[in-house]
């Protein structure tokens, strides 16, 4: 009976940990199989332990160039979407203007639309305009679908900001530009950083829109997709595992830094 009671009290913990396991199981498999030495072209069955792929991550032709391309596109898409998105977010929160509802729904629509619909219609535009598909069309598409997410992230932060801080700066004879750079921007920075991080992750991992608008250009997700048809090299798993580890370390480091800062303040 004691056990049943314990089970009842901790049901939600057990169910939650089960879900966490479900979420992490594929990553465990990806990591494990990055040490595999597969027999055939596909890396789906465990054969024997090997560190070959880790010592030679670029050993497959096209893999590292696709990774570089994805990082480049993600960088520029993040920059573009963050600048344009933050501008929209400031305008939405800080100013009154006409057609606010229309603006809000134009920003909301890309997030409520299945990717395949956006991808197909954008391709229709490019085909009609006779635009050569490649780096630029991918970049245009990525900025387009990252934009709304940046607006949402920045808006949330700017909205919770006390407007009296800016008024105080102006009372202390700061000009509009000085107020923006010294007061507004530092307070909005966490929202902008969150938006930028989200944009980077979305762009780097995007497949559906890229698949439609890339032409013959191969980004990293496109490379993985192609390899699922032709044969999956172990190096894919190496890259996947490395990205996971880098992400965890990055977040841990930023948490340690912000912890230290808040301690210093206290």
């Amino acid at each position, binding site marked *: 009976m004691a056990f049943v009671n314990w089970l009842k009290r901790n049901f939600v913990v057990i169910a939650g940990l089960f*879900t966490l396991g479900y*979420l992490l199981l594929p990553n465990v498999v*990806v990591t494990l199989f990055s040490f595999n030495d597969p027999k055939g072209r596909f890396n789906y069955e465990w054969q024997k332990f090997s560190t070959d792929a880790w010592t030679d991550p670029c050993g497959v032709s096209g893999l590292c160039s696709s990774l570089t391309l994805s990082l480049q596109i993600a960088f520029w898409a993040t920059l573009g979407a963050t600048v344009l998105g933050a501008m929209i977010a400031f305008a939405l929160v800080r100013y009154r203007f006409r057609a606010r509802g229309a603006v809000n729904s134009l*920003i909301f629509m890309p997030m409520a639309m299945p990717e395949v619909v956006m991808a197909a*219609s954008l391709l229709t*535009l490019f085909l009609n305009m006779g635009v050569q598909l490649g780096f630029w069309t991918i970049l245009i598409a990525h900025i387009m679908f990252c934009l709304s997410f940046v607006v949402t992230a920045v808006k949330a932060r700017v909205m919770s900001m006390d407007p009296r801080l800016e008024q105080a700066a102006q009372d202390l004879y700061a000009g509009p530009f000085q107020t923006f750079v010294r007061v507004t921007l530092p307070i909005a920075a966490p929202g902008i950083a969150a938006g930028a991080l989200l944009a980077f992750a979305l762009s780097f991992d995007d497949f559906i829109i890229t698949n439609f608008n890339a032409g013959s250009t191969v980004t990293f997700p496109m490379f993985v997709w192609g390899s699922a048809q032709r044969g999956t090299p172990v190096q894919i798993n190496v890259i996947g595992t490395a990205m996971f580890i880098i992400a965890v370390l990055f977040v841990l480091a930023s948490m340690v830094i912000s912890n230290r800062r808040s301690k210093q303040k206290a």
Partner: protein
Amino acid sequence: MATVTEAPPLAPAPEKKPPRKRGRWTPYLLLLPGLAWLLVFFALPMVYQASTSVQTGSLEQGYEVTWHFSTYWDALAEYYPQFLRSVLYAGSATILCLLLGYPLAYLIAFRAGRWRNLIMILVIAPFFTSFLIRTLAWKTILADGGPVVGALNSLHVLDVTSWLGMTAGDRVLATPLAVVCGLTYNFLPFMILPLYTSLERIDGRLHEAAGDLYAKPVTTFRKVTFPLSMPGVVSGTLLTFIPAAGDYVNADLLGSTDTRMIGNVIQSQFLRILDYPTAAALSFILMFAILIMVTLYIRKSGTEDLV
């Protein structure tokens, strides 16, 4: 006693800002580049697609707008099974996501204590391993004769699921179950994060109050926690259902030709068969179907101020 020394809370910030005299054009200048981008690369393509869907012609001779609306009927008549399948698979995945995601969101919000940040990181970090690689890992996990399939088999789960038509014989791969499993996996974080956000806002004292009023934990959940988390439930289900309905990656990698969803059809019509009018019509039908479903759903759940 630390609270005594704290400064009294500031009065709430004035809601209405005085209208600015200078910079009447500033908001428009701030909006211009981003909105222009969305208009040209999001809204305008929709117009082009609408026009393509009523064109006739061929790749060689070019297309012309002939208001050929029967493309829509033909497309629906031919591909309605894929439409139904998309709704069915995406719906099942959404319900599974809710059932799986709710306990984890609840755990992070109320029970995790000092583990909260770590669990949060573990929910988000998989995003950084490309989702295609992680979806391919399901091929290994669900492999024929593998431990998962073996366990399900010995528990006679597969007998039940194959009777229901979700699996075929001793296989899980290349069946509807595998596709739903992959969809659930891929969109689970989109359910957990909004759920967590709305659960985290709930005042813990409400739980205590319910307990003081002799509510059992189940009643507390049913009458207090769940209703208060409705905004998270609604936005989580939307964020899961919409992308899942248009997805073609899971059906392609984990399914078979019998599990093709509407996304697969649009993709192959556009990129392989090059039948642009049919592809455009299909994608418009998908868009409208989702818009209608989402509108009805938001009305029904009574949270119109959500978006």
